[in-house]
Protein backbone atom coordinates (compact mmCIF):
# COMPACT_ATOMS: atom_id res chain seq x y z
CA UNK A 1 0.00 0.00 0.00
CA UNK A 2 1.32 3.41 -0.96
CA UNK A 3 1.78 5.58 2.10
CA UNK A 4 1.63 9.35 1.86
CA UNK A 5 5.10 10.60 2.75
CA UNK A 6 3.95 13.60 4.80
CA UNK A 7 1.42 11.61 6.82
CA UNK A 8 4.13 9.04 7.44
CA UNK A 9 6.58 11.72 8.59
CA UNK A 10 4.05 13.44 10.82
CA UNK A 11 2.86 10.23 12.44
CA UNK A 12 6.43 9.00 12.90
CA UNK A 13 7.50 12.21 14.65
CA UNK A 14 4.39 12.00 16.79
CA UNK A 15 5.10 8.37 17.67
CA UNK A 16 8.70 9.17 18.60
CA UNK A 17 7.61 12.06 20.81
CA UNK A 18 4.91 10.05 22.57
CA UNK A 19 7.14 7.02 23.11
CA UNK A 20 9.99 9.17 24.46
CA UNK A 21 7.73 10.96 26.93
CA UNK A 22 6.13 7.72 28.08
CA UNK A 23 9.50 6.00 28.39
CA UNK A 24 10.99 8.81 30.48
CA UNK A 25 7.92 8.87 32.72
CA UNK A 26 8.14 5.11 33.05
CA UNK A 27 11.81 5.47 33.99
CA UNK A 28 10.96 8.00 36.70
CA UNK A 29 8.23 5.81 38.14
CA UNK A 30 10.36 2.67 37.96
CA UNK A 31 12.80 4.45 40.26
CA UNK A 32 9.94 5.24 42.63
CA UNK A 33 8.67 1.65 42.40
CA UNK A 34 12.12 0.38 43.21
CA UNK A 35 12.47 2.63 46.24
CA UNK A 36 9.03 1.65 47.48
CA UNK A 37 9.43 -2.10 46.97
CA UNK A 38 12.96 -2.27 48.32
CA UNK A 39 11.70 -0.22 51.25
CA UNK A 40 8.96 -2.73 51.98
CA UNK A 41 11.39 -5.64 51.63
CA UNK A 42 13.62 -3.97 54.20
CA UNK A 43 10.68 -3.24 56.52
CA UNK A 44 10.50 0.50 55.99
CA UNK A 45 8.18 2.77 54.06
CA UNK A 46 10.20 4.20 51.22
CA UNK A 47 9.40 7.75 50.08
CA UNK A 48 6.06 8.97 51.44
CA UNK A 49 6.41 12.72 51.92
CA UNK A 50 6.00 14.23 48.44
CA UNK A 51 2.43 13.91 47.22
CA UNK A 52 0.00 11.11 48.11
CA UNK A 53 1.95 7.88 48.87
CA UNK A 54 5.08 9.67 47.67
CA UNK A 55 3.81 9.63 44.10
CA UNK A 56 5.35 12.99 43.26
CA UNK A 57 8.81 11.91 44.46
CA UNK A 58 10.17 11.45 40.88
CA UNK A 59 9.24 15.06 40.15
CA UNK A 60 11.06 16.26 43.24
CA UNK A 61 14.10 14.15 42.36
CA UNK A 62 14.08 15.51 38.85
CA UNK A 63 13.93 19.11 40.02
CA UNK A 64 16.72 18.46 42.51
CA UNK A 65 19.02 16.90 39.93
CA UNK A 66 18.22 19.57 37.39
CA UNK A 67 18.94 22.48 39.72
CA UNK A 68 22.13 21.05 41.21
CA UNK A 69 25.42 22.66 40.32
CA UNK A 70 27.00 20.94 37.33
CA UNK A 71 30.55 20.34 38.55
CA UNK A 72 33.35 20.00 36.04
CA UNK A 73 36.32 18.37 37.80
CA UNK A 74 39.67 19.85 36.78
CA UNK A 75 41.47 16.67 35.76
CA UNK A 76 38.90 15.32 33.33
CA UNK A 77 39.26 14.96 29.56
CA UNK A 78 36.43 17.29 28.70
CA UNK A 79 35.05 16.19 25.29
CA UNK A 80 34.67 12.57 26.29
CA UNK A 81 33.57 13.42 29.81
CA UNK A 82 30.62 15.28 28.35
CA UNK A 83 29.98 12.83 25.50
CA UNK A 84 29.89 9.71 27.68
CA UNK A 85 26.51 10.24 29.42
CA UNK A 86 25.00 11.39 26.14
CA UNK A 87 26.12 8.17 24.44
CA UNK A 88 24.80 6.06 27.32
CA UNK A 89 21.39 7.73 27.36
CA UNK A 90 20.88 7.94 23.61
CA UNK A 91 21.74 4.26 23.11
CA UNK A 92 19.35 3.35 25.90
CA UNK A 93 16.56 5.40 24.34
CA UNK A 94 17.25 4.34 20.74
CA UNK A 95 16.65 0.66 21.17
CA UNK A 96 13.05 1.18 22.30
CA UNK A 97 12.22 2.24 18.73
CA UNK A 98 12.17 -1.40 17.54
CA UNK A 99 9.72 -2.57 20.20
CA UNK A 100 6.11 -3.25 19.17
CA UNK A 101 3.83 -2.32 22.06
CA UNK A 102 0.52 -3.53 20.75
CA UNK A 103 -1.33 -5.30 17.99
CA UNK A 104 -0.57 -4.40 14.39
CA UNK A 105 -3.13 -1.63 13.91
CA UNK A 106 -2.56 0.63 10.95
CA UNK A 107 -3.74 4.19 10.50
CA UNK A 108 -3.24 5.48 6.95
CA UNK A 109 -0.78 2.64 6.44
CA UNK A 110 1.36 3.62 9.43
CA UNK A 111 1.84 1.18 12.27
CA UNK A 112 0.47 2.84 15.42
CA UNK A 113 2.13 0.82 18.15
CA UNK A 114 5.67 0.48 16.85
CA UNK A 115 8.11 3.15 15.69
CA UNK A 116 9.81 1.01 13.07
CA UNK A 117 9.11 -2.54 12.00
CA UNK A 118 12.19 -3.92 10.26
CA UNK A 119 13.33 -7.39 9.29
CA UNK A 120 16.32 -7.41 11.59
CA UNK A 121 14.72 -5.69 14.59
CA UNK A 122 16.19 -8.03 17.18
CA UNK A 123 19.69 -7.70 15.76
CA UNK A 124 19.42 -3.93 15.79
CA UNK A 125 18.49 -3.98 19.47
CA UNK A 126 21.50 -6.20 20.20
CA UNK A 127 23.72 -3.87 18.16
CA UNK A 128 22.56 -0.72 19.91
CA UNK A 129 23.02 -2.24 23.36
CA UNK A 130 26.52 -3.33 22.38
CA UNK A 131 27.36 0.25 21.36
CA UNK A 132 26.00 1.46 24.70
CA UNK A 133 29.10 0.07 26.43
CA UNK A 134 31.08 3.08 25.23
CA UNK A 135 29.13 5.41 27.48
CA UNK A 136 30.30 3.52 30.53
CA UNK A 137 33.83 2.81 29.28
CA UNK A 138 34.53 6.40 28.23
CA UNK A 139 33.03 7.92 31.37
CA UNK A 140 35.42 5.94 33.50
CA UNK A 141 38.45 6.69 31.38
CA UNK A 142 37.79 10.39 30.91
CA UNK A 143 37.05 11.03 34.59
CA UNK A 144 40.73 10.58 35.42
CA UNK A 145 39.88 8.83 38.66
CA UNK A 146 41.05 5.36 39.57
CA UNK A 147 37.72 4.26 41.02
CA UNK A 148 35.96 5.39 37.86
CA UNK A 149 38.50 3.63 35.67
CA UNK A 150 38.24 0.39 37.65
CA UNK A 151 34.47 0.57 37.54
CA UNK A 152 34.49 1.22 33.81
CA UNK A 153 36.92 -1.62 33.09
CA UNK A 154 34.80 -3.96 35.16
CA UNK A 155 31.64 -2.79 33.49
CA UNK A 156 32.89 -3.14 29.94
CA UNK A 157 34.43 -6.55 30.57
CA UNK A 158 31.21 -7.70 32.22
CA UNK A 159 28.95 -6.35 29.51
CA UNK A 160 31.03 -7.85 26.68
CA UNK A 161 31.12 -11.24 28.39
CA UNK A 162 27.45 -11.41 29.15
CA UNK A 163 26.45 -10.06 25.75
CA UNK A 164 27.69 -13.36 24.39
CA UNK A 165 25.43 -15.41 26.63
CA UNK A 166 22.56 -13.00 25.92
CA UNK A 167 22.98 -13.28 22.15
CA UNK A 168 23.29 -17.05 22.27
CA UNK A 169 20.21 -17.44 24.45
CA UNK A 170 18.16 -15.47 21.95
CA UNK A 171 19.21 -17.78 19.10
CA UNK A 172 17.00 -20.59 20.44
CA UNK A 173 13.95 -18.36 20.07
CA UNK A 174 15.04 -17.29 16.59
CA UNK A 175 15.41 -20.93 15.57
CA UNK A 176 11.88 -21.67 16.73
CA UNK A 177 10.29 -18.64 15.10
CA UNK A 178 12.63 -18.43 12.08
CA UNK A 179 12.62 -14.64 12.00
CA UNK A 180 14.39 -11.62 13.48
CA UNK A 181 11.29 -9.55 13.10
CA UNK A 182 9.78 -8.97 16.51
CA UNK A 183 6.20 -8.94 15.28
CA UNK A 184 6.58 -12.36 13.66
CA UNK A 185 8.18 -13.76 16.81
CA UNK A 186 5.16 -12.60 18.82
CA UNK A 187 2.60 -13.73 16.25
CA UNK A 188 3.91 -17.25 16.48
CA UNK A 189 3.25 -17.26 20.22
CA UNK A 190 -0.27 -15.88 19.90
CA UNK A 191 -2.07 -19.11 19.05
CA UNK A 192 -3.07 -20.70 22.33
CA UNK A 193 -2.33 -18.06 24.92
CA UNK A 194 0.05 -18.94 27.71
CA UNK A 195 0.88 -22.49 26.54
CA UNK A 196 2.28 -21.32 23.22
CA UNK A 197 4.56 -18.71 24.74
CA UNK A 198 8.17 -19.44 24.04
CA UNK A 199 8.92 -20.04 27.72
CA UNK A 200 6.60 -23.06 27.72
CA UNK A 201 5.43 -23.85 24.20
CA UNK A 202 8.77 -23.51 22.45
CA UNK A 203 10.62 -25.18 25.34
CA UNK A 204 12.87 -22.19 25.73
CA UNK A 205 12.81 -21.95 29.52
CA UNK A 206 16.55 -22.64 29.64
CA UNK A 207 17.03 -19.76 27.21
CA UNK A 208 14.75 -17.63 29.35
CA UNK A 209 16.82 -18.36 32.43
CA UNK A 210 20.04 -17.49 30.58
CA UNK A 211 18.48 -14.34 29.16
CA UNK A 212 17.27 -13.29 32.58
CA UNK A 213 20.67 -13.75 34.20
CA UNK A 214 22.56 -12.12 31.34
CA UNK A 215 20.11 -9.23 31.33
CA UNK A 216 20.82 -8.53 35.00
CA UNK A 217 24.52 -8.40 34.16
CA UNK A 218 23.98 -6.33 31.00
CA UNK A 219 22.16 -3.61 32.90
CA UNK A 220 24.63 -3.68 35.81
CA UNK A 221 21.99 -4.60 38.33
CA UNK A 222 22.27 -6.53 41.57
CA UNK A 223 23.53 -9.24 41.99
CA UNK A 224 25.92 -8.22 39.21
CA UNK A 225 26.30 -4.52 40.02
CA UNK A 226 30.06 -4.72 40.55
CA UNK A 227 30.83 -1.71 38.33
CA UNK A 228 29.19 0.49 40.95
CA UNK A 229 29.94 -1.56 44.05
CA UNK A 230 29.93 1.28 46.58
CA UNK A 231 31.88 -0.60 49.22
CA UNK A 232 34.90 -1.02 46.91
CA UNK A 233 34.64 1.66 44.23
CA UNK A 234 32.74 4.55 45.89
CA UNK A 235 30.30 4.78 42.98
CA UNK A 236 32.11 3.17 40.06
CA UNK A 237 32.18 4.80 36.67
CA UNK A 238 29.95 7.73 37.57
CA UNK A 239 31.90 8.78 40.67
CA UNK A 240 32.91 12.11 39.14
CA UNK A 241 29.52 12.92 37.67
CA UNK A 242 26.96 15.24 39.21
CA UNK A 243 23.69 16.95 38.40
CA UNK A 244 22.22 16.34 34.94
CA UNK A 245 25.10 14.21 33.71
CA UNK A 246 24.62 11.84 36.62
CA UNK A 247 20.89 11.88 35.97
CA UNK A 248 21.56 10.83 32.38
CA UNK A 249 23.47 7.74 33.51
CA UNK A 250 20.73 7.00 35.98
CA UNK A 251 18.01 7.32 33.36
CA UNK A 252 20.06 5.22 30.93
CA UNK A 253 20.27 2.40 33.46
CA UNK A 254 16.53 2.34 34.06
CA UNK A 255 15.69 2.80 30.38
CA UNK A 256 17.91 -0.20 29.66
CA UNK A 257 16.02 -2.17 32.28
CA UNK A 258 12.75 -1.33 30.60
CA UNK A 259 14.10 -2.24 27.15
CA UNK A 260 15.41 -5.55 28.41
CA UNK A 261 12.04 -6.20 30.01
CA UNK A 262 10.26 -5.38 26.75
CA UNK A 263 12.53 -7.71 24.76
CA UNK A 264 12.03 -10.51 27.28
CA UNK A 265 8.28 -10.00 27.03
CA UNK A 266 8.37 -10.13 23.24
CA UNK A 267 10.69 -13.10 22.94
CA UNK A 268 9.55 -15.33 25.76
CA UNK A 269 6.28 -14.12 27.22
CA UNK A 270 4.15 -13.69 24.13
CA UNK A 271 4.42 -9.92 23.75
CA UNK A 272 1.08 -8.15 23.67
CA UNK A 273 -1.01 -11.32 23.37
CA UNK A 274 -3.39 -12.30 26.10
CA UNK A 275 -2.37 -15.21 28.34
CA UNK A 276 -5.87 -16.66 27.98
CA UNK A 277 -5.58 -17.07 24.24
CA UNK A 278 -8.98 -16.97 22.59
CA UNK A 279 -11.01 -17.92 25.65
CA UNK A 280 -12.54 -14.46 25.66
CA UNK A 281 -13.94 -12.89 22.51
CA UNK A 282 -11.54 -10.39 20.99
CA UNK A 283 -14.15 -7.69 20.40
CA UNK A 284 -14.79 -7.17 24.09
CA UNK A 285 -14.48 -3.39 24.12
CA UNK A 286 -15.09 -2.44 20.52
CA UNK A 287 -12.38 -0.83 18.43
CA UNK A 288 -10.75 0.97 21.34
CA UNK A 289 -10.64 -2.16 23.44
CA UNK A 290 -9.14 -4.10 20.58
CA UNK A 291 -6.36 -1.53 20.34
CA UNK A 292 -5.74 -0.98 24.03
CA UNK A 293 -6.17 -4.45 25.53
CA UNK A 294 -2.90 -5.76 23.90
CA UNK A 295 -1.08 -2.69 25.21
CA UNK A 296 -2.43 -3.47 28.66
CA UNK A 297 -1.10 -7.04 28.50
CA UNK A 298 2.25 -5.82 27.25
CA UNK A 299 2.61 -3.25 30.02
CA UNK A 300 1.51 -5.78 32.63
CA UNK A 301 4.16 -8.27 31.52
CA UNK A 302 6.91 -5.65 31.46
CA UNK A 303 5.79 -4.51 34.90
CA UNK A 304 6.12 -8.08 36.23
CA UNK A 305 9.60 -8.25 34.76
CA UNK A 306 10.61 -4.97 36.40
CA UNK A 307 9.13 -6.13 39.69
CA UNK A 308 11.26 -9.27 39.45
CA UNK A 309 14.30 -7.07 38.90
CA UNK A 310 13.58 -5.10 42.05
CA UNK A 311 12.73 -8.19 44.03
CA UNK A 312 16.06 -9.76 43.13
CA UNK A 313 17.82 -6.56 44.09
CA UNK A 314 16.21 -6.63 47.49
CA UNK A 315 17.06 -10.30 48.01
CA UNK A 316 20.40 -11.35 46.59
CA UNK A 317 23.88 -10.25 47.71
CA UNK A 318 26.53 -9.12 45.25
CA UNK A 319 28.79 -11.59 43.44
CA UNK A 320 32.59 -11.46 43.63
CA UNK A 321 34.21 -10.38 40.37
CA UNK A 322 35.93 -13.67 39.52
CA UNK A 323 32.72 -15.53 40.40
CA UNK A 324 30.84 -13.27 38.02
CA UNK A 325 33.22 -13.88 35.14
CA UNK A 326 33.41 -17.61 35.86
CA UNK A 327 29.64 -17.85 35.97
CA UNK A 328 29.28 -16.08 32.64
CA UNK A 329 31.95 -17.94 30.73
CA UNK A 330 31.97 -21.36 32.33
CA UNK A 331 28.30 -21.88 33.07
CA UNK A 332 26.01 -19.63 31.04
CA UNK A 333 27.92 -19.86 27.74
CA UNK A 334 28.07 -23.68 27.56
CA UNK A 335 24.47 -23.84 28.73
CA UNK A 336 23.41 -21.45 25.97
CA UNK A 337 25.27 -23.49 23.36
CA UNK A 338 23.69 -26.69 24.65
CA UNK A 339 20.31 -25.02 24.40
CA UNK A 340 20.94 -24.06 20.78
CA UNK A 341 22.03 -27.63 20.02
CA UNK A 342 19.00 -29.15 21.72
CA UNK A 343 16.59 -26.74 20.07
CA UNK A 344 17.97 -27.32 16.59
CA UNK A 345 17.97 -31.11 17.05
CA UNK A 346 14.38 -30.96 18.25
CA UNK A 347 13.40 -28.81 15.27
CA UNK A 348 15.22 -31.11 12.87
CA UNK A 349 13.41 -34.17 14.20
CA UNK A 350 10.10 -32.38 13.95
CA UNK A 351 10.80 -31.31 10.39
CA UNK A 352 11.89 -34.79 9.33
Amino acid at each position, binding site marked *: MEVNFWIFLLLSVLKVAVVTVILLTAVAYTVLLERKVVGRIQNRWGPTRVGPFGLLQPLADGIKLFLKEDLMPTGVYKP*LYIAAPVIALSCALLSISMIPFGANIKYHGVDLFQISD*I*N*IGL*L*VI*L*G*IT*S*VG*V*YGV*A*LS*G*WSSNNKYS*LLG*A*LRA*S*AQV*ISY*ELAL*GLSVIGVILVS*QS*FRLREIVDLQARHGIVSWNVFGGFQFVAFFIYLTAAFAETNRTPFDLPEAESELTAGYHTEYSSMKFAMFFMAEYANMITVGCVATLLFLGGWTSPFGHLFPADLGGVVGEALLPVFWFVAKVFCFLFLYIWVRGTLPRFRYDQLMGFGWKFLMPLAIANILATSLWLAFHAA
Partner: protein
Amino acid sequence: MHLVLFIIFGGLCVAGALNLLFQRHPINAALSLIVVMSSLAVLYLLLGAEFLAAAQVIVYSGAIMVLFTFVIMLLNAGSEERTHGSKAAYAIGIPGAAALFAALAYIFLSNSKSLSTAKLGDYIVTTSDLSRVLFRDLLLPFEVTSVLILVAILGAVALARREH
Protein backbone atom coordinates in the same frame (compact mmCIF):
# COMPACT_ATOMS: atom_id res chain seq x y z
CA MET B 1 16.14 10.25 -0.51
CA HIS B 2 18.83 7.68 -1.21
CA LEU B 3 21.23 10.37 -2.37
CA VAL B 4 20.59 12.50 0.72
CA LEU B 5 21.22 9.57 3.03
CA PHE B 6 24.31 8.61 1.05
CA ILE B 7 25.73 12.12 1.29
CA ILE B 8 25.03 12.40 5.03
CA PHE B 9 26.53 9.05 5.99
CA GLY B 10 29.27 9.06 3.37
CA GLY B 11 30.26 12.50 4.64
CA LEU B 12 30.27 11.16 8.21
CA CYS B 13 32.52 8.30 7.06
CA VAL B 14 35.02 10.62 5.43
CA ALA B 15 34.96 13.07 8.34
CA GLY B 16 35.54 10.23 10.80
CA ALA B 17 38.37 8.81 8.74
CA LEU B 18 40.06 12.21 8.44
CA ASN B 19 39.67 12.70 12.17
CA LEU B 20 41.34 9.32 12.67
CA LEU B 21 44.18 10.52 10.49
CA PHE B 22 44.79 13.80 12.31
CA GLN B 23 44.03 12.96 15.95
CA ARG B 24 47.10 12.42 18.07
CA HIS B 25 45.45 10.54 20.88
CA PRO B 26 44.55 6.88 20.23
CA ILE B 27 41.23 7.07 22.07
CA ASN B 28 40.03 9.88 19.80
CA ALA B 29 41.18 7.86 16.81
CA ALA B 30 39.26 4.85 18.11
CA LEU B 31 36.10 6.90 18.56
CA SER B 32 36.30 8.34 15.06
CA LEU B 33 36.76 4.83 13.73
CA ILE B 34 33.55 3.83 15.53
CA VAL B 35 31.78 6.69 13.75
CA VAL B 36 33.14 5.43 10.40
CA MET B 37 32.03 1.87 11.10
CA SER B 38 28.54 2.82 12.27
CA SER B 39 27.93 5.01 9.24
CA LEU B 40 29.22 2.22 7.01
CA ALA B 41 26.51 0.04 8.55
CA VAL B 42 23.92 2.55 7.33
CA LEU B 43 25.49 2.47 3.86
CA TYR B 44 25.20 -1.33 3.88
CA LEU B 45 21.52 -0.94 4.70
CA LEU B 46 21.16 1.42 1.73
CA LEU B 47 22.75 -1.25 -0.46
CA GLY B 48 20.27 -3.84 0.78
CA ALA B 49 22.62 -5.82 2.99
CA GLU B 50 20.57 -5.83 6.18
CA PHE B 51 22.20 -8.71 7.99
CA LEU B 52 25.66 -7.32 7.25
CA ALA B 53 24.61 -3.92 8.57
CA ALA B 54 23.59 -5.48 11.87
CA ALA B 55 26.71 -7.63 11.94
CA GLN B 56 28.85 -4.57 11.23
CA VAL B 57 27.43 -2.76 14.26
CA ILE B 58 27.55 -5.81 16.53
CA VAL B 59 30.96 -7.16 15.48
CA TYR B 60 32.91 -4.05 14.53
CA SER B 61 31.47 -1.21 16.61
CA GLY B 62 30.30 -3.40 19.44
CA ALA B 63 33.06 -5.94 19.87
CA ILE B 64 36.28 -5.16 18.02
CA MET B 65 36.36 -1.46 18.84
CA VAL B 66 35.38 -2.11 22.45
CA LEU B 67 38.43 -4.34 22.59
CA PHE B 68 40.55 -1.51 21.18
CA THR B 69 39.26 1.08 23.65
CA PHE B 70 39.66 -1.47 26.41
CA VAL B 71 43.33 -1.97 25.54
CA ILE B 72 43.89 1.79 25.20
CA MET B 73 42.37 2.30 28.63
CA LEU B 74 44.28 -0.62 30.10
CA LEU B 75 47.69 0.50 28.80
CA ASN B 76 46.79 4.15 29.43
CA ALA B 77 48.24 5.07 26.04
CA GLY B 78 49.17 8.76 25.82
CA SER B 79 49.13 10.89 22.70
CA GLU B 80 51.92 10.14 20.28
CA GLU B 81 54.89 12.39 19.70
CA ARG B 82 56.51 13.29 16.41
CA THR B 83 59.64 11.27 15.78
CA HIS B 84 62.25 11.00 13.10
CA GLY B 85 60.35 8.21 11.38
CA SER B 86 57.10 10.17 11.33
CA LYS B 87 58.61 13.01 9.26
CA ALA B 88 59.70 10.57 6.56
CA ALA B 89 56.28 8.93 6.71
CA TYR B 90 54.58 12.31 6.21
CA ALA B 91 56.81 13.09 3.25
CA ILE B 92 56.14 9.76 1.52
CA GLY B 93 52.82 8.66 2.96
CA ILE B 94 50.50 11.53 2.09
CA PRO B 95 51.60 11.94 -1.57
CA GLY B 96 51.60 8.16 -1.95
CA ALA B 97 48.08 7.82 -0.60
CA ALA B 98 46.93 10.72 -2.77
CA ALA B 99 48.46 9.07 -5.86
CA LEU B 100 46.77 5.79 -4.98
CA PHE B 101 43.46 7.57 -4.58
CA ALA B 102 43.92 9.34 -7.92
CA ALA B 103 44.59 6.02 -9.66
CA LEU B 104 41.58 4.30 -8.06
CA ALA B 105 39.26 7.23 -8.74
CA TYR B 106 40.41 7.37 -12.37
CA ILE B 107 39.65 3.68 -12.83
CA PHE B 108 36.24 3.88 -11.19
CA LEU B 109 35.19 7.03 -13.02
CA SER B 110 36.36 5.82 -16.42
CA ASN B 111 34.33 2.64 -15.95
CA SER B 112 31.31 4.26 -14.34
CA LYS B 113 29.32 3.86 -17.59
CA SER B 114 29.24 0.10 -17.21
CA LEU B 115 28.19 0.27 -13.55
CA SER B 116 24.53 0.48 -12.63
CA THR B 117 22.86 2.71 -10.09
CA ALA B 118 21.60 1.64 -6.69
CA LYS B 119 17.97 2.24 -5.81
CA LEU B 120 16.43 1.90 -2.35
CA GLY B 121 14.70 -1.45 -1.90
CA ASP B 122 15.90 -2.59 -5.31
CA TYR B 123 17.87 -5.58 -4.16
CA ILE B 124 17.53 -6.77 -0.57
CA VAL B 125 19.42 -9.78 0.69
CA THR B 126 17.50 -11.23 3.60
CA THR B 127 19.15 -13.23 6.35
CA SER B 128 17.71 -16.45 4.95
CA ASP B 129 19.19 -15.76 1.48
CA LEU B 130 22.58 -15.22 3.07
CA SER B 131 22.41 -18.26 5.31
CA ARG B 132 21.24 -20.50 2.47
CA VAL B 133 24.47 -19.80 0.59
CA LEU B 134 26.55 -19.87 3.75
CA PHE B 135 25.31 -23.20 5.08
CA ARG B 136 24.87 -25.06 1.80
CA ASP B 137 27.51 -24.00 -0.69
CA LEU B 138 30.11 -22.65 1.69
CA LEU B 139 29.77 -24.91 4.68
CA LEU B 140 33.40 -26.00 4.71
CA PRO B 141 34.89 -22.45 4.72
CA PHE B 142 32.40 -21.55 7.43
CA GLU B 143 33.53 -24.43 9.62
CA VAL B 144 37.19 -23.64 8.90
CA THR B 145 36.69 -20.06 10.13
CA SER B 146 35.29 -21.41 13.37
CA VAL B 147 38.54 -23.33 13.81
CA LEU B 148 40.40 -20.11 13.00
CA ILE B 149 38.52 -18.29 15.76
CA LEU B 150 39.29 -21.06 18.22
CA VAL B 151 42.99 -20.84 17.35
CA ALA B 152 42.83 -17.05 17.71
CA ILE B 153 41.25 -17.33 21.16
CA LEU B 154 43.92 -19.75 22.33
CA GLY B 155 46.65 -17.59 20.81
CA ALA B 156 45.35 -14.43 22.44
CA VAL B 157 45.15 -16.11 25.84
CA ALA B 158 48.64 -17.56 25.49
CA LEU B 159 50.11 -14.22 24.39
CA ALA B 160 48.45 -12.00 26.92
CA ARG B 161 49.01 -14.26 29.91
CA ARG B 162 51.57 -13.01 32.37
CA GLU B 163 54.39 -15.49 32.84
CA HIS B 164 55.02 -16.64 36.37
